[in-house]
């Protein structure tokens, strides 16, 4: 299984800013290896985020998102102590979920 995500959620006012750093190769499908064969695309396709178990965000990504992707968004109404969980799923079907507490 892939390395854990780094999630940082900080409350400010009535919302919380969430920053996520995922660990993923994000192969674009454009590159060629030493033998001239195309390296098949391998990238995160779906990202979802939940706030205390309720889904707040869904995103679809293409292979043009950078390696070890970064994502920042803000959740309305989240306060210190709330749980933010982020899940990704790549085009090979691998998936990972990590959770953080808003501070």
């Amino acid at each position, binding site marked *: 299984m892939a390395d854990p995500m780094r999630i940082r959620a900080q409350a400010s006012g009535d919302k919380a800013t969430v920053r996520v750093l995922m660990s993923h190769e994000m192969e*674009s499908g454009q*590159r060629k290896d030493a033998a001239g064969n195309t390296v098949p695309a391998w990238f995160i396709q779906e990202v979802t985020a939940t706030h205390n178990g309720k889904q*707040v*965000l869904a995103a*679809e990504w*293409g292979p043009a998102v*950078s390696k070890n992707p970064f994502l920042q968004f803000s959740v309305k109404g989240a306060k210190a102590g709330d749980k933010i969980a982020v*899940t990704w799923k790549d085009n090979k079907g691998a998936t990972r979920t990590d959770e953080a507490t808003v501070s």
Partner: protein
Amino acid sequence: MQTRRETLKQSAVVAGLLATAGFPQFAHAAFNKAAFDAKSVQDAVKAAGGTSLAESKDVTITGPDIAENGAVVPLGASTALPGVKHMLILVEKNPAALVAMFHVSDAVDASFSTRAKMGQSSDVYAVAIMNDGKALWAKKEVKVTLGGCGG
């Protein structure tokens, strides 16, 4: 303060729960392959459900003027308008224009930042697709001194 061990333990529990209960709210629309295969900005926006394209001052795209490394270009898209359905980030001259599509809900701000790969200097677009299908866009030119696609 949580220790790393506790965090790992918790995430294992969460993953276990997800695996067993299958949380129905995690099911959402299938990956929009057509939009991500589209070569041009217009085609990608159409495939994502936008009908009429219009430039708008209410949508902002953030990014560097010059990106030294095309493999990691920080890009952000945001708008303060109500009734946004999707936010899109696109790079015009990439092999496939669409970088990321965010489904906006009531619980999040229509403001996202991420990092993109860029093959060459290009215009980058932020597109807000409204609930009525209108697609409002803003663009910015980003110069890349070292490409991020290809070897």
